[in-house]
Every structure is written in C-alpha cells, then in structure tokens.
C-alpha cells in the first residue's frame, strides 16, 4: 500500500461541496417566493417526452420522420425492401463515388455486403494501420439504432468497427435493418441500457448527418473533419 497524503484534492473538493450544500437553494422558478409552475413526480426526463420534438409510433411514421430529418441534414437515406435491394444501392454508390478501396468491420450485414463490392477491403477488427484506413474511400459500418426523432445513427466502438472507422474515411455508409428504427432518443438510451447493462462499449456516438461546420460566417460546409457524405441504407 502506498501511504495516502493527509487529505487528497478529491477529499478537499468533495468537502467544499458538502459544506456549500448545507444551505438549500430554491427550486427553479421559485426565486422571489413564487410557487413553481408544477412539481415533477419522478425524474423529469421520464415525463418530458411529449414536450420534446415528435417521434412517431408506427414504422411508417418513423421512416417518414427519419427521411424528413435526413433531407434537412443532407444524409443520403435509402429505405429498401430486401438485402438484395440494399446491395444494389451500395453498388450504385460505389460506382458514383469511384471507390477504389473500402474499410469495414466483421458483421452480419457488413461482411457480405462489402465482399459483394469486388473491391479491396480493409477490415479493422483486431487492429489496423491508420494510414491505410485514411486512404480508404468509404467506411462501411452497422449500427445499434436509427433514431426517427432526430435522424441520428447510433454506433459504438464494439460493434461498429471501433472509434475511427465512422469518422476517418470521407464517406460513411451505415447498413441497418428496419427493426433497428426507434422512435426517439429516450428509446435509444433505453435500448443501450438494456443491451449492454454495465458492460457498455468505451464509445457510443449519435451521428446526426455528415460532418459539418458553420464557423466561417455561419455558412454551412460539409466534411469539416469527418465524412463529407453519410449514407444510411435500411432494409
């Protein structure tokens, strides 16, 4: 055992916090002796769902919402009937983008789909050379969920090829099944919790549209650091 110093910074900071909190602060909206507009029963986020942007209860509604969001975000969204149709879409994108080399990870959807492209494939599982990944024209991944409310794709570092595959190549293609569509962010977080419990991946990312910036005169430019193009193919 290393001998501990008399009081660590952690203890000092937590001590200052406890001391400060011995005096109560008023609830939000009660400054000046006003009564709050209403009292929450339970956690606010559990009752907040109807106040947030709309989701959609049926798959049709959810697909429609995801499509609307995608149009605005400039995400290229394809909702097709079968795996064959999805493969055809991917082949079209390969030709249009003049791909020479793609990167992917092992997965139920990705392995067959990338093999069918007839291009050199870099598979990132088990480690990869970062310069080789940088030289790929596209990164093809699966996802945890598609979120209708926001048009987001949820990927993680365990089953979407790590941290870099979805941001380093200039084009990110997501392959998904229709069962993966969820209504809103609340449902997406519930799914993450249910799927991983306490053993969650080291990174979980909600990707909403291609990489973008408005830092120069607030004018939208795509592909600031991450992918210039985001394609979602769902069947």
């Amino acid at each position, binding site marked *: 055992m290393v001998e501990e110093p008399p009081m660590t910074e952690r203890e000092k900071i937590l001590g200052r916090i406890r001391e400060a*909190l011995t005096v109560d602060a008023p609830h939000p909206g009660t400054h000046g002796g006003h009564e709050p507009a209403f009292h929450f029963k339970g956690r606010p986020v559990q009752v907040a769902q109807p106040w947030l942007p709309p989701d959609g209860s049926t798959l049709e509604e959810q697909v429609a919402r995801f499509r609307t969001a995608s149009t605005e975000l400039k995400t290229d969204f394809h909702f097709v009937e079968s795996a064959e149709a999805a493969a055809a879409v991917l082949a079209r994108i390969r030709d249009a983008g003049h791909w020479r080399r793609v990167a992917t990870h092992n997965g139920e959807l990705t392995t067959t789909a990338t093999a069918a492209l007839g291009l050199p494939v870099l598979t990132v599982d088990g480690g990869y050379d970062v310069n080789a990944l940088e030289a790929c024209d596209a990164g093809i991944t699966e996802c945890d969920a598609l979120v209708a409310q926001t048009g987001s794709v949820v990927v993680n570092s365990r089953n979407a090829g790590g941290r870099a595959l979805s941001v380093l190549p200039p084009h990110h293609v997501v392959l998904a099944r229709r069962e993966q569509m969820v209504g809103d962010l609340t449902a997406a977080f519930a799914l993450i919790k249910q799927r991983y419990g306490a053993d969650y991946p080291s990174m979980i990312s909600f990707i909403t549209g291609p990489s973008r910036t408005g830092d120069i005169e607030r004018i939208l430019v795509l592909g600031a650091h991450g992918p210039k193009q985001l394609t979602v193919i769902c069947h």
Partner: protein
Amino acid sequence: MTAPVQDFLVQARIVARDLRHRGLIQRALGKYEVARDRKQAAFGSWQSARQAAAETKWDAINHLDQYLDQFAQRLEARGTKVHWASNGAQAREIILGIIKSKGAKSIIKSKAMTAEEIHLNDAMEQAGYEVVESDLGEFIVQLRHEPPYHIVFPAMHLTRDEISDLFQRKLGSAPTNEPEELTMIARRALREKYLTADIGITGANFAIAETGMISITENEGNARLTAALPKTMITLLGIEKVLPELADLALFLPMLATAGAGQTMTGYNTMYGGPRQPGECDGPKEFHVVLLDNRRTELLADPEQRDALHCIRCGACLNVCPIFRNVGGHTYGTTYSGPVGSVITPHLRGLQDWKHLSASSSLCGACTEACPVKIDLHHHLLHNRRNAATGKPSVLERLAYHAFAFVANRPALWLFGKEVARLFQPLHVFVKGSYLDPARPWTATRDTPEMAPESFKEWWRNRR
C-alpha cells in the same frame, strides 16, 4: 478604477461604433435566431422542456457530492484515471505531468472552454509542446493568437476574406473567398496533425454519474478523431457538468443543439466511458479525466446564485444579449462572456474587479428567457450589483444620495433648488456633455429633458 473596467470601457467604445463588426454579428445572429425559433417550435412544449431541464440540473448540482463521487468511481472501475484539481495551476500541472510521462511531442486538442479558463495552451507551449486546436473556429483564432470570440462560435467576428488572408500567411494556401475551400484547407492541414499526435485533449459537455461517461457535443467530428487516434486521451471538465443519468441526455442533447445553434441535434454526440476496452480495435490506451473546481464551489456556496452552475454553455444568452451584440465577445476580457459570463466571472475571478460586467446590462431579461435551463440571469446581475455595493460601497454615491434625501425632505429647499435649476437650464446647452458639466457621465450620450415651465403644484394651484 481597476484595469478590467478601463479595458472594457475603451474596447466597448471602439467596437460599438465599428459598423463592419455590427454587420457581421447581426447577420450571423439573425440566421441563428431564425433557425432556433423554427427548432423550438418543433418541440411539444419548449417551455415545459426548459422546466424539466432546470429541475434535472437542480438535482445534479444540489447533490453534486454524491453524483461526482459516483461519476469518478464508475470511470475508475473501467480503467480511467480520474484527477481532481482545486485550481487552474493544479490542473495544468496534472496535464503537463501526463504529457511528460508519455514522452509526447505533439498534442491535438478539440474545443474546451475549461482549457481556455486555465490557459492550458499557453502552459503547454511554454513547456515546449506543439498544441493544435482542431475545431475550425478555434484553429482560426489560435492562428491569430486570440482567445475565442464566442463560447460556441469562436471565429464569428471574422470575414471569409480575413480568414483567407490568415491562411495565406500562416499556411501558405492560395487565396479564396469560398468558405468550403477554406474549410478544406484547414481539414488537410489538420489531418496530418491527427495522424501524428501523441495526445488528444478534449473538454466535455456532460458528465454522466450513473454510467461514468463523459459526453461531447460537436458538429465537425474533430473531437471524435481526437478521442480515436492518439494513444492517450485527456478530458478536462468543470465539476458542474454532472447529469444524474444517461437517459437525461434525451432531454439535454436536443435542448443544447436547439438553444446553441438552432439544430435539432448536433452532428456528433459521443459518450466515452473509458479507454479502449478488451475486444475493441482502436481508441486510446489511457484515458485521463481531470475534474476542475477553480472556485466553482464558491459559487455553489451562494444559494441565491447557485443555479448559475446549471449552465450548459450553449451560448443562447450571448446571442440574444443587446450588450454582447454591441460590444462583442472580446471586450469582456473574460473566458465566459455575455450575460452568463457577467454573472459567474465575479465569482470565479473576484467581485470588485469584475463588477462592471453586471452594470453593463439593460436588464431586459432576454438572457433569462433564452436560457434552456432557466438560470435567473438578469436577476443575478442585480444580485452582483447589490453584493458589490455592500462589499465596497462608493462613498461619493452614498453622499450624493444623502444630499438628495436632505433636499427632497425639505420643501422650501426643494422649491428653491427647482427655481434655480429652471433659471439656469437654458445655459446648460453651453456646457452639456463637456468637462464643465456636473452631470457629464449622463449627459455625454443623452439628451437632457427640459424642465416644465410650471410644476404640477403650480398648475394645480392656478387651475383652482
């Protein structure tokens, strides 16, 4: 007078009359307002969502010791090293220590206001390390050796031509006035840095106690790359960033995006719960989280203004503030500008030196209305004014009020004063606003109302 107030007055005078600045800011914020209003309208109830967000942050801040402890324990359980820093010097020392122990040379950084607060870049550069800001706006202001102009839009005060000139000088690029081409110049310059950087430094928007995760919100993907490629990742965040549960983000991510930039959801919202885990193919081998107090606990100890720690740094209060829009972000001379900066800076850096920020407000309340977590901003500006006056009352001001009370309580004296004033007012035009004018601070920029030919009392008497 202290130095910060003099700087503020000089800068404010210059910037408020700069028509180029005015045009740029009005155009940028005009666009923001249109987008924000449209996105707020898409909420089922933006006002109710604000109340829910405020209650959630109230819970987090008023149980900060428990949540912070839980956050640190969960992170440590999965191999993250958590450091605690009471002040900026300690935080800098911790971070420099990590960099040194790794034998690192180059550092890539994604946007972190907390790092600005403790002047981390200066410290790293003085120690001989190369630090590159990767957020486009931050990259631009770093090349200009300037602090960020705005907490969300760091290079908002520059035109594309100025940025093009800057890139020509510093990066040797060809001139262009296309924002897209300028962005690609920066992208190419930064790609190289990413591939060679030894250390990635980020900030954080939220700290999730339940799962032990930090959450980073960004549009460009630069923080994603910063957290993916270098072997060591360091995250610096203030202790107030805590949220109790992962699911709370379902509320906070869309609210931050809407209030901050008029988006439904920011491009990348990413939660990091540790270094590379077994079975993962990339990511940093080491993950360090540095928790910074730096006098936040002093603000916490003031129950009246404790809700200022609810701030999620969206910048909405800056965007709507008539003062910010007139004097600009750099005039404040602080890391956090605008209404929230005026509220918290006196707590973080000393009330008497920074009390003038609380006076530079029209008290219109636009900031309070705009705040997604309902911080009572404009009342806190009044609280700061009161606290500053109680702590160090101005003798002259108090004398003036005593003199006024003395006269106002004696009708004969009041009447005499009024007659004298009426007699001499026509002569006031000759000295108005000049150094001979006893009321100069007021009259220099304002018209003086003319006294009525007869008082109400006289009018009433004559009428009967």
